[in-house]
């Protein structure tokens, strides 16, 4: 049996490091685990949608360059819960926190 920690998946493609770090900090502050994975060339929508569907928790984030998006399982591809182009640090932190708050069934920041 393969035992994995329940975690939020973050699929990246040539991610902006500063943005990615803030997203991770946002999730960590909420006390939820996350896993990072660099993916082959694909669109932001695909990254986020796949991450959400692969995650046991049903919450995923896509980061492509300086574009970020939050997706949840059950939503259509492309209809991201939240997304930014060239986000500020604050926005990255909140998007990360929200991916965790979605699982905890808390309202978004």
């Amino acid at each position, binding site marked *: 049996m393969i035992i994995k920690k329940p975690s939020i998946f973050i699929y990246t493609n040539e991610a902006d490091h500063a943005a990615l770090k803030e997203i991770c900090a946002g999730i960590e502050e*909420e006390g939820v685990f996350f896993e990072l994975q660099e993916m082959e060339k694909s669109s932001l929508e695909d990254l986020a949608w796949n991450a959400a569907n692969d995650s046991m928790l049903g919450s995923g984030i896509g980061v492509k360059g300086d574009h970020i998006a939050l997706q949840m399982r059950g939503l259509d591809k492309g209809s991201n819960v939240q997304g930014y182009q060239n986000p500020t640090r604050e926005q990255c932190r909140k998007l990360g926190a929200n991916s965790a708050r979605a699982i905890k069934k808390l309202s978004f920041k």
Partner: protein
Amino acid sequence: MTYIAGVDIGNSTTEVCIGEADLNGGIHFLSSSSCSTTGTKGTLSNTHGIKTALKQAMSKIDLDMEDLSLIRLNEAAPVIGDTAMETLTETIITDSSMIGHNPSTPAGAGQAVGEILLIDNLSRGVLGTAYIVAASDSFSYEEVAALLNQSADSLDIAGVILQADEAVLVENRLHKKVPIIDEVARIDKLPDGVPAAIEVALPGQTIRMLSNPYGIATLLHLNAEETRTVTPIAKSLIGKRSAVVLKTPGGNVRENVLPAGEIYLDGENSTSINLDEGAEKIMQVVSAVGNIRDISGQSGTNVGNMFSRIKKGMSEVDNIPDSDIHITDILAVDTLAPVLISGALAGETCLEKAVGIAAMVKTQQLPMQKIAESLRSELHTDVKVAGVEAVMASLGALTTPGTRLPLAILDMGGGSTDAAVISEEGKVIMTHQAGAGELVSMLIETELGLSDRHMAEQIKKYPLAKVESLFHMRMENGQMTFVDQSIDPRFYGRVVLLTDEGFIRIEEEIPMEKIVQVRQEAKRKVFVTNAFRALQKVAPDHDLKNISNVVLVGGSAEDFEIPEMLMEEFSNYRIVCGRGNIRGQEGPRNSVATGLVLSYAGEIQ
């Protein structure tokens, strides 16, 4: 054909009913409409709203306003409702002696004692003294963790207070775990070098040491006298997930009782009562006074200011000198208002005692005749001021299927609750009581600490639901609803109002149960109290048992729960009580307008 319009100008809505009179004096109802009243009831600015409503109603039957041969206005009672709120207590923190709040993610658990040391001054710390380190948000979580780890061997760091929301991030990077409190907004107010105790509760629990006076005494080594002075601090920290208590010599939390003042009632048996006595006592005195000529407050006190504010507001709209405005009835309601504690460091609030008052203001006769004249010249139609409002409302209410004389009506509007009883001989007794929908909105606004009245009005009108996932929500009655299309993420995890046009999000983080409780309590406090008060006044021999039928009309009778509340209460008196259904189709609205058209038939016969 003769087309007749009945127009009812209310405190908040203007209602119109269009009827057609045939040659034999029979009336056929054709259409109706309503829109918000423009300006204060009974002033010239009402004409704008009247025209809008008339146009609406006439266009429904493909006719123009010019086709009307008669417009009948209500002889509005010269009473207008107003509301005011006054807090009776205030809580003040002196010398920044405590922080107690519920950050969503504090870190670590347990309590710690030490001197406050700002992180900039970390190098000044000496070995052998325990420290609580305070860091502003100009330091990132990595910097804070690095600095603390560096000094871990040379300093005894017992706990950390952060300004940013980064407690877990810092804790995960510390080699030596300590309790960490975050989201302390006014960290700059923390005094350097003062002994302090901090506590973070275990997950799922609330703090236990700092919410106990002896716990504070143990941690900060207080003597018996000092322990006594920290008792209010302990009390105000009950139920928090994290807290900081500082040992400042003059520091304290004080509850001040504000000088509330006396209410003077001028009537058959003139008397006075102090606002401190509470709503129940005040209402007893109000009913004992009998017919009230005027009510005023002790000048220079809160209640005095409150009453003069109401009178002043009225005189400004009506251009009537203050002395001609009389408050003829009040409804006082006890309430609790969450007020920001002055001197607090993290935006803590405290529930303060308050009294909400609705007042019935009697002015001179309202200039209805002037409104009629201006309508006449603008529309070139005959306009008549016809009939007393309560009589018209009763006439309209009688069109509800299943009613007969004698009948009592309870007209619950925005500003006032009016009651009338018509006997079998057609004799009408009526009364106007202060307090209705607007007071309910005000109570909801203050008790929930909402930022605007509009939101409170929405909460009053619509049921609630909590969006629990993107595909389902739980209604306030526990029922679950699933949806096909995912719910907008903006509503995720939120409490929303279910309106006809979709959801409205409630910004404040208040549990749904609490909102429901406050809403129902506010409605009960105002409408149940007032219904009894009003009906007792008009009932034969002032005994409710002499009333057999009550029809609820007016805007607040449309509410989704008020009629049920009243039905329950009245069933104890064997009274048939229910929401009116004017002409069998309008619901509880439009009774006065309908009555105005009906009374025309009576006149030509």
